[in-house]
C-alpha cells in the first residue's frame, strides 16, 4: 500500500500495465499485483489534464456489444476508448439478432469476422463473456454478465476508495443490499478481499446467497451491526420486482431495515463514505439527502473514475496482446 500512496503524489506510474491474460473476464483469480497496477495506472490517467494527448491506440478497433441496457457503463467504455484514440463501434443487441433467433456463437463469429481488437460485452447470462473468449480471437472485457461479475466496476470502486482514503488494506467495507443478484457485489468481494480489506455483506436473508462466507466475507442480516464502524458503505440497487412480496414484503419495509439513513450511518465510522454503482432508487436503498451529500457520497466520483479505470484496462489489454504476439 505504501507504493499506492507514493504514486498518488508522484504519479510516475506512466507505462502501460501488462496482464497475465488477454481478457478481463472476472476479478476472481486475478493477482493482487495486477489489480494494484491497474488501479495505479488508472490513478495516473485520472490525474491527467483532460486535454492531454493520450491517443496511443490509433487504428485500434473496439466493439461495445451490449445485450442488456446500459447507459453509464457503455458511455464510460466509449469515452475511455476514444480518449486512447481507438475507434469505437456501439452495438446494441437487445432487440436485434437475438430476436431473429441467431445463436450467441453465430453473433460472436460474425463480429469476429470483422476483426476487432477488443470486444466489450455485457450479457444477461452469467459466464457469457467466457464463451466469447473461447470462440473469438480478440480480447474480451466483461462489462457485466448476469449475476456473475462486473470487474471494471470493482476496479473503479477501488480507485475511488483509494483516492479518497489512500489505501484499501484493513478498511472495513460494508456491501449492502441485493447481494444474491448482484455482479457488482461479487466482483467487489473478490477484489476487496484480495486487497486485504475487511468485507461485510449486509442483506435480507432472502437476498443473501448460499455459503457467501466461504468467499471470505462476514455476513449480516442486521444492517446496524453490519455497518458498525464501517469506513465505506457500498449500496446496491434493488430491482423493483423484488420489493413486491417476493424477496421483500414492501418498499417501505425494505427501507426501514436495509435503507441507508442518517440513523444507521451514525453507527459507521464518522468519516465513512457512501458508494453506489447506480442507478439509485432514492428512498429505497438510500435516503435521498445522503445520496446528495457531497462530503460523504462518492457516487459521482465513481462515475468519473470509471473512465480512467477503463482506459488503464483497454491500454493494458492492448499492451498484453502485443507482448503475447511478440513472444
Amino acid at each position, binding site marked *: 500500500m505504501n507504493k499506492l500512496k507514493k504514486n498518488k503524489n508522484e504519479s510516475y506510474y506512466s507505462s502501460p500495465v501488462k496482464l497475465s491474460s488477454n481478457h478481463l473476464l472476472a476479478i476472481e483469480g486475478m493477482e493482487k499485483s495486477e489489480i494494484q497496477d491497474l488501479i495505479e495506472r488508472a490513478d495516473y490517467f485520472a490525474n491527467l489534464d483532460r486535454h492531454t494527448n493520450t491517443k496511443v491506440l490509433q487504428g485500434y478497433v473496439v466493439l461495445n456489444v451490449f445485450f442488456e441496457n446500459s447507459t453509464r457503463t457503455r458511455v464510460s467504455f466509449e469515452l475511455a476508448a476514444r480518449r486512447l484514440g481507438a475507434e469505437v463501434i456501439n452495438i446494441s443487441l437487445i432487440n436485434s439478432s437475438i430476436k431473429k433467433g441467431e*445463436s*450467441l456463437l453465430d453473433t460472436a463469429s460474425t463480429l469476429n469476422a470483422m476483426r476487432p481488437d477488443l470486444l466489450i460485452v455485457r450479457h444477461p447470462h*452469467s*459466464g457469457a463473456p467466457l464463451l466469447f473468449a473461447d470462440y473469438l480471437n480478440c480480447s474480451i472485457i466483461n462489462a457485466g*454478465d*448476469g449475476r456473475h461479475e462486473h470487474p471494471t466496476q470493482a476496479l473503479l470502486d477501488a480507485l475511488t476508495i483509494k483516492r479518497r482514503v489512500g489505501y484499501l488494506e484493513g478498511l472495513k467495507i460494508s456491501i449492502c443490499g441485493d447481494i444474491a443478484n448482484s455482479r457488482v457485489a*461479487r466482483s467487489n468481494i473478490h477484489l476487496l478481499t484480495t486487497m486485504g480489506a475487511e468485507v461485510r455483506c449486509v442483506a435480507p436473508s432472502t437476498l443473501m446467497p448460499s455459503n457467501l462466507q466461504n*468467499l471470505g466475507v462476514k455476513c449480516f442480516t442486521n444492517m446496524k451491526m453490519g455497518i458498525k464502524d464501517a469506513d465505506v458503505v457500498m449500496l446496491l440497487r434493488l430491482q423493483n420486482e*423484488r420489493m413486491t412480496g417476493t424477496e421483500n414484503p414492501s418498499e417501505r419495509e425494505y427501507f426501514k431495515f436495509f435503507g441507508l439513513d442518517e440513523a444507521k450511518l451514525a453507527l459507521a465510522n464518522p468519516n465513512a463514505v457512501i458508494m453506489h454503482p447506480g442507478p439509485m432508487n432514492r428512498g429505497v436503498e438510500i435516503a435521498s439527502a445522503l445520496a446528495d451529500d457531497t462530503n460523504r457520497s462518492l457516487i459521482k466520483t465513481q462515475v468519473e473514475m470509471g473512465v480512467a479505470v477503463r482506459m488503464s484496462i483497454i491500454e493494458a489489454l492492448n499492451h498484453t496482446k502485443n507482448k503475447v504476439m511478440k513472444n
Partner: protein
Amino acid sequence: MTFTVLKSIKVLNPKTYFNDISDVVICNNKIFSICKDFKTEVTQQDRQINIYDCNGLTMSPGLIDMRVNIGKTENLMAIQKIAAENGITSMVILPNQTPKLNNPSIIDHIKRQSENPNLTKVNIYGAATKDDHGLEMSEIGLMSEMGAIGFTNGNKSIKNSLVMRRLMSYAAMINRPIIQHAEDEDLSGLNKASTTLINGEMNEGEISTRLGLIGIPSCAEVIIVERDIRLAKLTGASYHVAHISTRDSINVIREAKKIGLKVTCDTAPPYFALNETSLLSYNTAFKLSPPLRKEDDRLAVIEGIQDGTIDAIASDHRARSKDTKAQPFSAASVGASGIETLFLMTLELVHKKIIDLNKAISLLTINPANVLKMKKPSLEKNELADFIIFDENYPDVINQNILKTSPTPFDRRKIKGKILGTFINGQVAHINQILKDKIIK
C-alpha cells in the same frame, strides 16, 4: 442348425450367483449349454460351428437401461443401435418426447416400430398424466395392456399430491410401478408463477454463489420423496425414484425400505462420478437435471449403491445437440448423453474397489428387471440368449469426438473396460474387431 461357441469364457450370472470359466454354446435364440467342454455337447460334424476363443473375457446378461430420453432430433432406431453397441440389450424410454407417449395406440405403435431382432429391445414408460399440467390421469390400464411397464411424467415431477395418490392407488391395482423425477418445482424455480423470479440452474451452494448461477436447494428432491413415500404407504404402491442425487433422499429411502415399503430408486453415473465443482468453468455438458450435487451427496450415492439402498444404475441418457449446449450456461439445454458410458462408468466402481463385478452387473441387469417387474435375465440353459461379452480391463479413454451421442460429461476420462460383443436373441447385434479376430478357424 448353427452353433456359436464361446470357449473358456468367464460366465457371470448374478441371478444364480454363477461365476466360473466355462464353454457356452448358443443355438438359435437360446443358450444351448453352459459346460466345461463344448465338445461333449456339440458332436455332429455336419453342423456349422463358430467358435470364439474367449479366454480372458467375461460374459454377462445384456444390460437393462431403465431411463433413456429420446430427444427431438434423435431417431429411435439409431439409439437402439448405439445402445446395442454399448451392451444395452433392453432399454426403457421416457414418455415426454414428441408426441407424448400418453395413450395406448402410441405405445402399441412404438412397440411395433421398434421391434427388430438385432436391435436393443424397447420398453416404454407411459405418461402418468395426459397433459403437462399433471392433473388428469392417463389411461394407464390400457397402456399397460399395450406393454407400458411403468408410469411417469419423465423429467417433470408429478406435483399434485391428490393426483399422485390416485395414480399410485390405480397403478398398484394393475401392479405397475410409478416412477418419479423428484423435484419440488416451486423451490427449483421451474414453476413459472409470477412471484418466483428464478429458474434454477445448478445445485445451490458456494459454487452457485461464485458463478452467479441460480441455485436449486438439494431439499427440493427429498421434499417430494418424503411426500411420495407417505403416499406409497397409504396406497401400497410400488414407487421408484429416478436418478436420485442427494444424501437426504437416500436416507429417507433407506428407512422406507427398512419398514418394508415397496420403494426403490436408481441413480446415474454423473451422480456417483462427479460433483458440482465440475461446473466451475461453466461447461454446459454438466448442466443436468437433477443438478450435480456437492461431494457429500456423491459419497452418499456411493454408500447407497454399496448397501443396496440404490437398486439400479441407469444411463439417464438425454443427448443434446451442440447448438443447444454451445450457449451461455443459463440458456443452454439440460441433459447429457449416457448410453455410451453407462457400462464403462459402472465398471469404474469395480476398478475403484467400491463394489465387485457381480454387484455392478446386478445393478445393470437383474435389479432394474426386478424394479420394473420384468423377467430377470439369466445365463442358463434354455434361457434367451441376450448377453454381452466384455474385457473388463481394456484400457481406454472416453473421447467425445469418437462418441456418437453428445455431450458426455466424462470427456477425456481414463477408464478400463470395453464391450466386445452384444448378442440379442442369440444373434450378433454388435461385434468388435477384437472379438472377430478370436474366431477359431
